[in-house]
């Protein structure tokens, strides 16, 4: 039997490396009808902001080859409702939770983190993922994750709000010229780990109406079609860590994972944990299936410990 456990920082040893991806699993109740969400290494919740948000109008999705575009607009109940209802529910079923937080200013991120910390269910939190792929209102809507300074500021402010034993993960966008520069800025600002990747910006035009198909015009591209981009991003950042350009921190891999093989590919590139997002829409129990398949593959390859497979493709 392969030892699947992994330590992503803060002394929270997770029983396995499989997670949901933010925004692809809601806040747990829906998927709990298909599998026990406490079987996951951690449950990643939908990015939550300070106030309730309606999100955008419809259509909010367009199907693409091996994936989809989404333009949800971070619809959600706001952090107060999240800590009053969603987090306690996840705690009640024994889930380890990696809440994802978002904001439109660095102070909003800090406020959301502080409210989270004050929650009576904070014990269930094994880390906080910071979705920095949000428009920064103070900088004409430029996405934080595209600007090393803005990313660093958000991470530093969030880090200050949370106890040391709760690791902070910066979730990076692949839509940048050099992802290692953003990764370095986040780690230097106090990120204890990195999640890679968020969606890629894309667009579909409906040729019947000759108009953009999405209500929000552009949207985030996800699904198996983007997997090579995720593998590349993880590889580059891990390489920079080996070269000493970035301090070594754990990477959570996400982007198009459909099978245990796909998860193993990301692990070999440098990921210490894996999130399954869009593929849940195809197969609601995909996260636990991928875990089972990954375990079988590791066993077949003769690994005793999952962590021994991390970054092996670098050949070091």
């Amino acid at each position, binding site marked *: 039997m392969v030892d699947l456990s992994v330590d992503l920082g803060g002394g929270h040893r997770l029983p396995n490396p499989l997670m949901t991806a933010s925004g692809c699993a809601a806040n747990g109740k829906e998927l709990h009808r298909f599998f*026990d969400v406490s079987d996951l290494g951690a449950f990643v919740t939908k990015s939550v902001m300070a106030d309730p948000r309606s999100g955008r109008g419809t259509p909010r999705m367009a199907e693409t080859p091996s994936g*989809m575009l989404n333009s949800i607009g971070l619809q959600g109940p706001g952090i107060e409702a999240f800590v009053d209802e969603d987090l306690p529910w996840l705690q009640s079923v024994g889930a380890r939770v990696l809440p994802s937080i978002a904001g439109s200013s660095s102070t909003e991120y800090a406020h959301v983190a502080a409210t989270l910390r004050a929650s009576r269910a904070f014990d269930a939190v094994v880390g906080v993922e910071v979705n920095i792929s949000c428009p920064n209102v103070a900088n004409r809507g430029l996405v934080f994750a595209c600007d090393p300074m803005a990313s660093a500021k958000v991470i530093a402010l969030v880090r200050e709000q949370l106890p040391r034993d709760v690791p902070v993960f910066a979730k990076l966008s692949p839509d940048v010229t050099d992802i290692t520069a953003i990764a370095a800025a986040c780690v230097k600002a106090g990120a204890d780990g990195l999640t890679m990747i968020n969606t890629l910006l894309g667009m579909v035009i409906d040729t019947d109406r000759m108009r953009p198909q999405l209500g929000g015009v552009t949207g985030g591209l996800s699904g198996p079609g983007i997997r090579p981009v995720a593998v590349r991003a993880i590889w580059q950042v891990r390489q920079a860590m080996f070269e000493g350009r970035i301090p070594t921190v754990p990477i959570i891999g996400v982007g198009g994972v459909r099978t245990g093989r796909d998860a193993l590919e990301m692990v070999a590139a440098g990921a210490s944990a894996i999130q399954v997002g869009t593929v849940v*829409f195809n197969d609601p129990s995909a996260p636990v299936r991928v875990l089972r398949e990954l375990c079988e593959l590791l066993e077949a390859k003769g690994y005793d410990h999952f962590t021994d497979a991390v970054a092996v493709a670098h050949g070091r």
Partner: protein
Amino acid sequence: MTGPVTGPVTGPVTGPVTERGLRARVTQEVAEVIATRRVGAYQHITLVAPGVAELARPGQFVALAVGGESSGTLLRRSFSIHKVSPSGTYGGTVEIVVSAVGAGTRWIVDRAPHDTIDVVGPLGKAFPLPTDPVACVLVGGGYGSAPLFWLAGELRERGCHVEMVLGAASEDRLFGVVEARRSCDGVTVTTDDGSAGQQGWVSDVLPDIIDRTKAGVVYGCGPMGMLESITRVADDHGAVAQVAVEESMACGIGVCMTCVMPVVGSDGRTRMVRSCVEGPVFRGDRVRWDAFDGGHARVPDDAVGAPKVGGH
């Protein structure tokens, strides 16, 4: 895809048992097609899906994966459940009526007997049934009539007088006229081109039927424009409308937030709610029809969390 164990799990997935001992109300199963036949413009497909058949109620839907295990088409296609037979000869079966409009639905209608399709269901909320034996009018547009015969049976079992209105663009796009005559107390047919029944729209004939039967509830399933007019007519004639909507859905199980539409809650406030879990059946007068344009919904300015002027 070259992975070792690709594709969804086989066999019914029964979710975890909670502290209250409740079983999951949804299953995922690999269903065998046991019958498929052409009915006018549609394909009527019978699937062996005992888990779904056991749990489903009229108005709920199933989500079918398309293209097989390694398909590049990830998103499931949703279909109203036309009929279930929990203890048929083949084990429980579920029937759907499919209109081939694009690549996904074409793949589904091309399945032959003994092929398999991965099914998730039952999904969404069912049609609410009246507690008293009031008269009901059931209105189906095109394949939208599919879930109404089963509903008609349940209503008549409760002693309700049930009339049905079937409307479509043309005769080949009507579904279930013969079955309607068998399962209802009265049937009216309309077509846009007059190729069957009365020429016109369902909303032309609906007022008289509500008045004549003193109907308390009008159930509707069909295109959004039709559901809006059914709601208006029902309101004007003292009946409650219960409508089953059709929104683009990426997941069908409540996790993605793509299928939202503006609906007024019991507190009087409008929210963008998920039609896959809070619907597909809504009380017609709760839907913010004013926010729809060409089938697409805007966020009304007074909705909870609506963007404020100058951004969020």
